[in-house]
């Protein structure tokens, strides 16, 4: 077993007074892909948003418990959530490149927002776009608006934007749900490539996708973690009855 990069211990999360996550314990292995599956509303997005402390930016939302990143609790009061988010990058469900920025500016947006500049901007732009498998398609027009790209390209641009910050962990919340099958295949290929360098957590509704990209899969149900195991086990021979029902499509 690979040493976990993140350890979630007794994580609870609320929206106002309604609880969205109950006591989650989960290890996220280094340089592997962890898939989060479960029926709509079971807390998948809430869970990944707790991993970079984005949950708490929602008004009245709060979280409790421990999330260790390399052994340090990110919920420690001394931790600055803003700084943490540079180490734990995030890709959202809907592609959201900044509309006022060009492709190049979008890739560099993280640094611009920090008020710093890279030493070698063109190099960083090219490297990030290559890692996001977008370079060949956009190299001729880096000054075009980011929103002039197709949906699938926009999503890869968002991935490049996250990668340019050189995060330790990359969170992806249904990154393919707004994409067609071809764009989806591209992003999946990309995830398998990125897995060599990054620790990835991906939320998905697509069972095939989880099986194609994930090393381990966690099944959530009504705010609780039901089962977390190797993807082959979750889909082949799960321990829990509810997991078996869900992955075979009997509910959810």
């Amino acid at each position: 077993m690979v040493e976990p990069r993140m350890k979630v211990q007794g994580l609870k999360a609320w929206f106002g007074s309604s609880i969205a996550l109950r006591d989650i314990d989960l290890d996220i292995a280094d340089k592997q892909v962890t898939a989060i599956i479960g029926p709509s509303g079971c807390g998948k997005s809430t869970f990944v948003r707790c991993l970079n402390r984005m949950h708490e930016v929602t008004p009245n939302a709060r979280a409790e418990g421990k999330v260790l990143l390399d052994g340090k609790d990110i919920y420690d009061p001394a931790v600055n959530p803003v700084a943490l988010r540079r180490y734990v990058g995030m890709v959202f469900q809907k592609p959201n490149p900044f509309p006022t920025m060009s492709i190049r500016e979008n890739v560099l947006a993280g640094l611009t927002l920090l008020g710093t500049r890279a030493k070698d901007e063109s190099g960083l732009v090219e490297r990030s776009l290559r890692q996001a498998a977008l370079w060949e398609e956009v190299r001729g027009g880096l000054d075009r608006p980011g929103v002039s790209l197709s949906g699938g390209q926009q999503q890869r641009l968002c991935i490049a934007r996250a990668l340019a910050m050189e995060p330790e962990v990359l969170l992806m919340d249904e990154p393919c749900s707004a994409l067609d099958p071809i764009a989806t295949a591209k992003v999946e290929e990309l995830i398998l490539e990125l897995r060599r360098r990054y620790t990835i957590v991906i939320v998905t509704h697509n069972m095939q996708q989880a099986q194609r990209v994930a090393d381990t899969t966690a099944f959530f149900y009504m705010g609780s973690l039901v089962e977390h195991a190797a993807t082959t086990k979750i889909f082949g021979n799960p321990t829990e009855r509810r997991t078996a029902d869900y992955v075979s499509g009997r509910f959810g």
Partner: protein
Amino acid sequence: MSRLYTVDAQAVAAERAFRAIAILALVLPLCLLALLFGGTLIDGFSRLSFDFLSGFPSRRPEEAGILPALAGTMALMLLTAAMAIPVGVGAAIYLEEYAPPGKITTLIEVNIRNLAGVPSIIYGLLGLEVFVRSLQMDRSLIAGACTLALLLLPMVVMASREALRTVPRMYREAAWALGAEKWTGIRRVVLPMCLPGILTGVILSLARAIGETAPLITLGALTYVSFLPTSLKSAFTALPIQIFNWTSRPQAGFHVAAAAGIVVLLTMMLLLNATAIVLRMRLQKKVTW
């Protein structure tokens, strides 16, 4: 299948009637506006000249010019904008992005909305008491600008909030998820996205404010000024005041001058509105989402 071919005559008639009413509602005010502008233009045409724009008021109507009023209005506009825009946009950003949702915020919101509806003469009375008397600004340019800025403020706040609200939350979250401080995200991502909206709203409110007469009269802006404002403490007049003054004179020649003044004022407002439209189109060509 025969149902496919039946025509509900009543529905068609209702549809036509509604269209007619809608078109009428659009065309009628436009016609009235054109009529008004055209009529004024004809009345004042004989006085519209460079001399009129660059002349000082006079007891002889055919020599009376509008320069001090024009300069006063321009100065008022700049000062008012310089005061109301930073404060108004700042307040909008606070209310929209920072204020915790709750009773106090709602109370503030409701009050701003109400303030935007307060008759402008009330602002004049407030300005008279606060700026002219208590703060001893006298009947000066700065007192007028402060009063107009108060009048403008609620409109700027509302227009800016409206514009901020058009930026979907996901862009703010995208910025924060990259490790941006809240303010940096707002300044670098949200504000550039809604700048066209804010500018349009602000310019349109400004165009309304410079046409205001009542608060300036209440303040006691002079109606006969034969010099240009030289400092913030200068006495001043403004276009609407000058026009009001001329229309209340018995001589017909002053009425012609008033008509010419109205044309100047309306042209200024139309120019401002056109600027707003052009700015929005230019900025939006760069910004599409």
